[in-house]
């Protein structure tokens, strides 16, 4: 019993942990201007305009946790892809579910295929999980499948994407996501600092209809063009196929050999592709900022290469928040409609803390070695 409530306390305390600030004290190999926070020009809203509630506001009391434990509930995870980011989300959720006595009975990844996700959802339904944590591949074509699952009484917690026509309460518990605007803004602030607030930059954005990446990209562009008049965006390149970013970046670099910096919509694989293009061109001057953690880019940053900052969300915390939200749903407790995990900027000096805060693990050995640890 003591252990049970110790676990309960952990859930509450961990979600209320003060957020790690990583904006200052940058001491990378090459000296750069410290990152300062510019004016915030927007906020992250939910898919229906809901105001954001921080993950730290989620809370289950020991009595509520005991009630969930007594229910002997089960849960399933359905993700859009299988990557270290989704692994970290799963790990965060599993740790909370362990404390809540919820058994995770199935997990699947759709590899961005909506039809496959529908099939996986039907398959998982055969085991009648009490709760479902999921990132829908597509808000339109997955909607019918999720509505059907909701009708079966499954408590659905959504990561980032809200399927069309679903209503909070009867259809889903809530939407949990990153602080999308802050991620784009932080990337702009980090790149501005890296280039000394002036020069030419390239903007590699996601050329797809994506709620998450579109908001982050637009926040970056708005911040960099409004708050940093000395910076000129000379190339805007849409990335439709993330695996082709290297070819696209090679052309941009060829056309703009004097680029001071570049922003890439996300790191794995387009950020890595842009980095490869810079290396192939023998360019070690252009500063690179991207979103989400990538081991090759982290290694490049540790070695003092082109990569100067990675702006990341807290994937592990997203998972924890989703599991706690599932607890709300199982108890019938009203959950905040739209919950966000804070963003953070990782520079070379905060790589180890950044990996821990985002993915809840240490950087790979190669990164630690490059950092001299």
């Amino acid at each position, binding site marked *: 019993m003591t252990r049970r409530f110790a676990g309960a306390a952990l859930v509450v305390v961990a979600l209320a942990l003060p957020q790690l600030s990583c904006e200052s004290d940058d001491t990378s190999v090459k000296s750069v201007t410290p990152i300062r926070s510019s004016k915030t020009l927007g906020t992250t809203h939910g898919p229906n305009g809901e105001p954001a509630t921080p993950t730290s506001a989620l809370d289950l009391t020991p009595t509520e946790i005991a009630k969930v434990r007594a229910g002997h509930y089960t849960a399933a995870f359905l993700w859009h892809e299988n990557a270290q980011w989704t692994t970290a989300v799963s790990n965060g959720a599993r740790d909370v579910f362990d404390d809540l006595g919820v058994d*995770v009975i199935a997990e699947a990844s759709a590899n961005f295929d*909506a039809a496959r996700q529908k099939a996986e959802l*039907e*398959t998982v339904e055969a085991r009648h999980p009490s709760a479902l944590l999921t990132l829908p591949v597509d*808000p339109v074509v997955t909607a*019918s499948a999720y509505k059907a699952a909701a009708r079966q009484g499954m408590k659905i917690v959504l990561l980032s994407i809200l399927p069309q026509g679903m209503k909070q309460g009867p259809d889903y518990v809530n939407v949990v996501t990153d602080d999308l605007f802050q991620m784009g803004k932080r990337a702009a602030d980090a790149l501005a600092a890296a280039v000394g607030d002036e020069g030419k930059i390239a903007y590699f954005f996601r050329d797809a209809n994506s709620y998450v990446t579109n908001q982050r990209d637009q926040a970056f562009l708005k911040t960099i063009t409004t708050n940093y008049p000395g910076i000129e965006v000379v190339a805007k390149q849409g990335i439709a196929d993330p695996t082709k970013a290297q070819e696209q970046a090679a052309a941009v670099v060829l056309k703009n050999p004097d680029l001071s910096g570049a922003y890439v919509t996300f790191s794995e694989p387009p950020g890595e592709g842009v980095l490869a293009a810079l290396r192939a061109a023998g360019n070690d001057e252009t500063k690179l900022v991207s979103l989400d953690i990538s081991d090759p880019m982290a290694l490049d940053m540790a070695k003092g290469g082109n990569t100067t900052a990675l702006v990341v969300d807290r994937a592990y915390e997203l998972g924890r928040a989703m599991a706690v939200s599932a607890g709300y749903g199982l108890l019938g407790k009203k959950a905040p409609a739209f919950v966000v995990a804070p963003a953070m900027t990782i520079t070379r000096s905060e790589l180890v803390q950044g990996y821990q805060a985002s993915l809840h693990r240490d950087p790979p050995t190669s990164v630690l070695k490059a950092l001299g640890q």
Partner: protein
Amino acid sequence: MISRRYFVYVAFLALLAFFAITLHDDGFLSQTNLLNIVRQTTPVTVMAVAVVFVLSAGEIDLSLGAVVALSALVTADVMQDHGAVLGVAAGLGVGMGVGAVNGGLVAVLRLPSFLVTLASMGVVAGLARTITDLRSVAVEDRGFIDIFGSGDVGPVPGLAFWALGAVALGQFGFRHRRFGAHVLAVGDNRAAARATGIRVDRVKFAVLVISGTAAALAGILYTGRVQGASYTLGEQDLLTVIAAVVIGGTRLFGGQGSVIGALVGSLIMGMLTNGLILSGLSSSEQLVAQGLLLLLAITLTARPEGDPI
């Protein structure tokens, strides 16, 4: 001694028994789950039937998955303003058109189907992304949805009838019409087929049109099933379809094929995915297990007749 051509059925029963025993508490054998497997595999089955013809003729169609997406989007898009009948006709027309272009280039210009369909895969995938500017299109026509994917006839999903229809038509054409024999002859020995008077180019053209049309039908079935279309639909189906067909006893390089085997191969692929998810393995573990079980199935079924194991 069991003939190698029956190994696919043995593999199917062995896998069914394996999951039935290991997942007996996890709903694997429930009627809902077994019908789910049929629903989930129908688009792959429809394409697999066509690919039996393509591979048996010694050709390949890499544009399948891209055609699925484009025809799904065209169907959903046209349907919004012009109704389901025109939507379906437009979707099927896209598939036939792409198949005819592929077939024409292969038959008339004597280009290898691998390269032709590799190129058309790129063109078609690009068009699928372009026509709706990467947006998904929702479908609300209840009649269309019921007929093409989400409806049931009693306890039997409507999709099962599409799968059976495709298999019956394929089996009839492959085993009971001269065309099937011509396909096998072309795949077995092109020069000999030509010498016996078979119009080899016409056969090549026809199998690629069949393939494009089947991919379009699969796209329409996906559209009915998920009640919408997006450019990602079916894009990853190509290898699943080819694996199903080869497991089912069709030779990758022509001259031998089995439509019924392709159906069973498709069910094996669907059952593998379904069972491994129900087993509670992580996504990465599922990939490893799927690869190993697939290797086992191929070892049993895809070797030429007469080879010692």
